[in-house]
């Protein structure tokens, strides 16, 4: 397993654990089924949950205050449900770390970040084929986008508007 974020590869502090073992760990990710039994995150302990991409955001929203991380599963490269789930979790007010877990490819990295993810946990098989330099390059491949309201700098529409206003002021 390899963990990547916008800055590059980094160490994963979290361990997968059941709710009982999570009590004794500094940072643990529990399965969704154990969410209710998991200890709350606090100043000393970080607690995350791994959810399937079919979960309803309002099912987890009551736990937001107890969670420092939500990991969303991407079962395959082509299954894009996690992108919408991330958007809805952010909209519902989750401010902790959002992690995408699964065989994503470098080209999906900027999409994941735009939808609200902070990091991607890759299986070894994909990580071996796609070195971090590729992720960096893919992240910078497109510098412009049309969609507004995603977690990235000004959209083309906003830039056009700014240009128009600038033109009027001159």
């Amino acid at each position: 397993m390899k963990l990547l974020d916008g800055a590059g590869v980094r160490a994963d502090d979290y361990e997968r654990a059941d709710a009982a073992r999570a009590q004794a760990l500094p940072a643990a990710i529990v399965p969704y089924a154990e969410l209710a039994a998991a200890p709350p995150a606090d100043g000393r302990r970080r607690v995350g949950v791994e959810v399937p991409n079919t979960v309803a955001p309002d099912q987890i929203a009551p736990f937001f205050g107890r969670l420092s991380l939500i990991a969303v599963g991407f079962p395959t490269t082509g299954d894009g449900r996690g992108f919408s789930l991330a958007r809805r979790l952010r909209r519902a007010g989750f401010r902790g770390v959002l992690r995408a877990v699964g065989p994503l490819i470098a080209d999906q990295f900027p999409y994941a970040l735009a939808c609200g993810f902070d990091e991607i946990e890759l299986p070894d098989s994909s990580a071996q084929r796609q070195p971090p330099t590729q992720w960096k390059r893919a992240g910078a491949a497109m510098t412009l986008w049309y969609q507004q309201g995603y977690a990235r700098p000004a959209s083309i529409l906003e830039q056009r508007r700014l240009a128009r206003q600038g033109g009027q002021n001159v």
Partner: protein
Amino acid sequence: MYRYDEFDERVVRERVAQFRDQVARRLSGSLTEDEFRPLRLQNGLYLQLHSYMLRIAIPYGSLTARQLRQLALIADKYDRGYGHFTTRQNLQFNWPKLREVPDILSLLADVDMHCIQTSGNCIRNVTADQFAGVAADEIEDPRPIGELLRQWSSLHPEFSFLPRKFKIAVGASENDRAVLKAHDLGVRVVRRADSGELGYEIHVGGGLGRTPMIGKIVRDFLPRGQLLAYVEAIMRVYNAEGRRDNKFKARIKILVHEIGLDAFRDRVEREFAAVGVAAAQDENEELTRIAACFAPKPYARLLARSDSFEAAKALNPAFADWTESSLHPHHVEGYAAVTVSLKPIGGVPGDMTSDQMRAFADIAERYSFGELRVTHAQNLVLPHVKKDDLFALWRMLAKSDLAADNAGLITDIISCPGLDYCALATARSIPIAQAISTRFADRGRQRDIGPLQIKISGCINACGHHHVGHIGILGLEKRGQESYQITLGGDASENAAIGELLGPGLGADDVPPAIERIVDTYLELRNEGETFIDTVKRLGVGAFKTAFFVGERNEAA
């Protein structure tokens, strides 16, 4: 016509570089074929039976002469000197080489074109009424919303890995010429009778393929400025809830069908409320910016009646025949929109050679402000021709073998590429179209039969729209043999309907005589002035079944 600004230009340039890098990563083994597939598909690159196939987007079917010339150049330099226009108003090249594709994309970018999202499980090229901006019966030009949607859906961070493909069509007339109801999403510009306010009627869940369905109205009036927010809500509900367990049940039509229109609408409206329309002002401003590119042409002030046109018709019956099937009313007096059939008798529907493209580009510049359109019926349109120029135009078209006088008639057949090209096909389509076309070649006979749409698909995926053909032909494979099912009564218009199966499958050779028996039955049973489709609707498919079976026995004997 929409012209790229610096931002649009940079997007396609960066996209070309991105695809070049993706191809390099595939060739080096960084990406597996499974991982590369969605990337190449989202760039319009298919692996077909004999070769790769590259599908080029022609947003809302609008092209300029300059763009068509560039397509001709690509056809000569990288392909075999021709291209194929599709039912989604795209152009396909059938023989490109993988390593040359980035260079082709670069040539396309030079003329404001691309292959973005012409395939794959994403939002596809937006199609439109081919008479948009021209038709006398439209409320307004729907192409600006087509362009708005094209931009918004391009390289979307959230909706590029959908359960399945997602097709959008736009129109602005009571008369549906864009098959809105056979699309995942159909947007029709409407005007409120009471207030005169303009807005959108939103159709959802239409589609052909294995499970044909007619789209349903999910919102009868959506105010201006809220389109992108509403479409975002629909897409999010679909992305989250569309089925992914079975590819054949993954289109939005199945979701709408399984949970029901009301439940679907509730979810969309709830999501829409959460998305909010704070950006309505932005959308209207952007729409205004785009619409300026589609401003009316500098038309001449002409009389509605052209004496020279009337005189030429009277003197030249062949010209008169051609005008009868090729002209559509233009909203400006003295002008006409001209459909140019790409269906010469016995030809391949929708194919055009590079020489024809260049000649047509010249013609468009001379007679139609340098603009042309691609229709979903695989024909072209010159949108703005002076009636005074029609005779000269017709003679020039004839020089390039582009003056077929059959638009809308029985030999104007829609056909997918079928087993001659396509990896998915179960039977040939093009040779069937050619055989029927040849059988009904006689112009007098075609004219007597009147408007009749035959649509042929070479597999259940229905790229040839057979379900909505007045006569639909579906090619299947049965025990190693091609077998063709015939349906009757399909309708691609605002009265959209799915055709009904007439009988058991036929061998390829038996299809043209069967079509002939159906047509003969119509000629026998029609009331005066009644079209084929109206006769089928009045009498039902049953009336044709009897003749179909009787005829079949006679021919077997």
